[in-house]
């Protein structure tokens, strides 16, 4: 992508999806995460390591901020100076929010990260030159860079451990950026099956690894275009619209009693992940 081309055709490259001229057709993958159900147990994160061939970097590299967890659990304490965290901790599963107007995409000098037709922010490893601009521009800090050649020089999968690697997912080499893909390999498999059978992917037919493991079913995933999918129903009930940066319900006087929100919506990134607020009982 040359700079001239980029500048001349700016409006084509840079707009929030979906827009009237380019709506999502068959699929728009999206997620809803119920923070009141999430217990912070980390099962999702381990599932992601298992599914996506994520290297374990060890203590020293973790300290240098080089951990590769595509899915991490953020933990927050109340910040009002109370003596004890007497309403517990606040956990938040954080992974790529698959923004519709993703800030990582526009800064990639190699066009390695871009949007797929079904609304997922994809990363093309063999196009990535390792500029790391995308990571710098990501407000969620969910992009992970391969500072080392983990399979060989770092030998993170010694001996028999290589046999665990998922053949559906590339093992990344040094110098490329990686991140959550919404388990694109599972979506592709489901789409292929559906196409062979002449139909669309059914709701629940494709599960992300994190969703599948979650012991409290806090994560739902599906096709937002299909109004009958669970995730579409959740978004609709919570009155969160994909293409709005300010939701009508939030503009109401006195706020809303619905729990759905997206993180940093005001940045106009239009994330594909909706969170449902954690709830705490007022009677105790």
């Amino acid at each position: 992508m040359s700079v001239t081309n980029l500048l001349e055709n700016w409006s084509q490259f840079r707009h929030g999806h979906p827009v009237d001229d380019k709506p999502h057709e068959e699929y728009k993958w999206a997620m809803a995460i119920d923070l009141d159900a999430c217990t912070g147990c980390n099962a999702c994160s381990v599932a992601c390591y298992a599914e996506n061939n994520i290297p374990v970097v060890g203590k020293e590299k973790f300290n240098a901020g080089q951990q590769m967890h595509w899915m991490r659990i953020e933990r927050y304490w109340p910040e009002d100076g109370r003596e004890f965290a007497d309403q517990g901790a606040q956990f938040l599963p954080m992974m790529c929010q698959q923004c519709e107007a993703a800030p990582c995409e526009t800064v990639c000098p190699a066009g390695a990260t871009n949007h797929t037709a079904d609304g997922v922010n994809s990363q093309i490893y063999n196009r990535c030159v390792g500029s790391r601009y995308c990571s710098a521009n990501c407000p969620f800090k969910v992009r992970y860079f391969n500072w080392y050649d983990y399979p060989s020089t770092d030998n993170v999968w010694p001996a028999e451990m290589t046999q665990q690697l998922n053949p559906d997912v590339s093992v990344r080499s040094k110098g490329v950026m990686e991140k959550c893909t919404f388990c694109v390999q599972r979506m592709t498999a489901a789409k292929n099956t559906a196409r062979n059978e002449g139909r669309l992917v059914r709701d629940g037919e494709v599960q992300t690894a994190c969703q599948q493991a979650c012991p409290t079913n806090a994560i739902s995933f599906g096709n937002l275009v299909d109004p009958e999918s669970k995730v579409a129903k959740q978004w609709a009930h919570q009155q969160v619209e994909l293409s709005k940066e300010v939701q009508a319900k939030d503009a109401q006087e006195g706020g809303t009693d619905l729990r759905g929100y997206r993180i940093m919506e005001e940045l106009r990134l239009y994330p594909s992940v909706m969170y449902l607020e954690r709830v705490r009982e007022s009677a105790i």
Partner: protein
Amino acid sequence: MIENGFNRRDFLKVLGWGGAVVALSGCGNTSVQDGAEIVTSYVEPPEYALPGIGVYFNSTCAQCDAGCSITGRVREGRVLKLEGNASSAINRGKLCGLGQAGVQAHYNPDRVREPLLRNGDKGEAITWDKALGLINEKLNGVKGDEIAFLTGAVSGHVKVLLKNYLEALGSKNHYAYDAVAPSVVRAANKKAYGVEMPRLRLDKAQVVVSFGADFLGAWVSPVHFSQEYAQFRKGSDGARGVLVQIESKMTLTGANADRWIAIRPGTEGILALGVINALDAAGLSLPADVAAVSKAYNAERVSKDTGVSAEQISKLATLLKARTPSLVIAGGAAEGYKHGSQNAAAIALLNRVLGNIGKTIEAPANVPFPQVAVTTGNRSSVQALNDSMANGKLKVLFSYGVNPVFTAPAALKFQDNLKKVSFKVVFANYLDETALAADLVLPLDSALEDWGTAVPEYLVEAAQLNIQQPLMEKLHAGTRGTGDILLALLKQRRANEYKDYEDFYSYLRSAVVKNKSALGGAGADDDTFWGETLSEGLVKLPASNGALSAKSSAAGLVLPAPAEEDSAYPLHLIPAVTANLRDGRHANQPWLQESPDPLTTIVWDSWVELHPKTAAKLGIVEGDIVEVTSRSGSVKAQAYLFPGIHPDAVSIPLGNGHTALGRWAKGVGINAFSLLDQVVDKDTGELALNETRVKIGKTGKRVMIVKDEGAAGGSQAGKKIAVSASTDEVELSGEV
């Protein structure tokens, strides 16, 4: 394209010759060329191996004793990933991080691969024939009571063989050991409800009050409880369940509570009686025996003893009275004291007073075949074993599935006493601390290579016999299944009885198929029934629930006054059982080490949790290396300031601090078991895990704690990232 008369064909010729030269000079013959291996074309693939397509086989998770059913994804004959098996009522298709790391136990490069015989300081590889022959030889002339078998919790057909083997040896010494078992609660439940482990219906409860039971993290059956918890939170029609957690050190469950109440260590029972007293004041009618005991526990006294405000106690009582049914659970934090049984009994009284017995506390399913039912582990067994070793009574010891050299409290001097046993055989996956102290190490198949059955302790709906089956070919030729080893040993003693069984598989198949009519397979032919059983991964046994005998009584309940200050050792040590590492047996699985502790976000290390107030008093800041000293031992680790701990307590997680086990465990962190004093619960004789007192000193060193708290140090910096609302601000009914 290519000029200078050098065409593509010539180019390929050169390449071809080059390749051949490399092949001839470089490698010599491969094992295929030697005929040692045979290459079979994928035109005739092995059964169910479809190139490029994942196939799924069911088995049972062996990472903890909860007995979740798993589905292994297998491609080209390799197991890639473990997922939950949806047909099990226990985990309903879900699996925790610990369970998923089972593949790393299987592919672990540090597994033991051949039988090892001690030769001085070294282990010398020997053949299985020699190893088994040696055991036979060493047992000759040894009396039955000089032989002991130490295991963790065991059930299923391995338990049957184990029992028969001990019987054949004339020994009654089976010690089932679990360093972090809820054994005091089991005994208290037996007294209060007539069963050791009743079914706890979180899904039916409106309010759950847990006295330190980490049921979402590491307690009994966390994946099952997590699912019930999700239902409990959703409630019916927006009536969301309320969780109150009372403990001195916040667990994962505490971190999810609507109200987390920090209590002075050891006063849980006092608070339970205080709540009963407050319920009385709120107008709930109490049985006479309870009222007689609880009347002394007025709000003022209880508040002074426990450090929980009178207002909080009355709020809790009001909530419990208004919303029924509720469920009160006693867990690790309450049972870990000299008076742990009494604490648990007082907590059980709350359930009786609130009328929960029979509503949210139900009778568990009966296991129709008691011979395969689980023998649960406890801590007093290792004390008993230790005593008989110390007296020089034991000559031969078998150990399977436990690591007592690592987990026994320092005060027992287990390792020294172990030396008094002249022949020690350890069944091992890794060379852990106990295996290193053995005379003979028998390498085991991984849980994903072995056959077996298991009946979990915590049962849902009906009892189930879980099937464990190999998900792939064995990785190492020299390992053997536990059942196979026991069968071989039994054949040495009772050859006639077992001559029909070539291996454990044939024994297992015959034992299951013989009982097919009782297992729901009446009328099916043997092969079909067996095939279906393997395919399902479990057999649901006919539902038959026992009955609770509600005999919870206040008679004989004596709660001591709160522990006195100990000026030499002023702080209470609460060893933390974490969801990932438990008693430390899985510390060599790197996913678990790199998976941050949910509460502190620390990875790859141990730490000492201190309340910021206590830390300020001692002049300690985050990352200070502090020395924690008890009467039994001392460790040095990094300090972490934590808002979820009582100021009188410090907490260190268990599981790390290995001196052996493998590359990812050895030298990581410190072993908190090495601090524990030998103080036991008076009623059960179980080691009281929270009774150790410690003092803390600075060492003058400081490190950067390696953790995942993020750039802002766990602060949301005023942004709306993780949002919380109170129930009166949100409308939950009608949610999808």
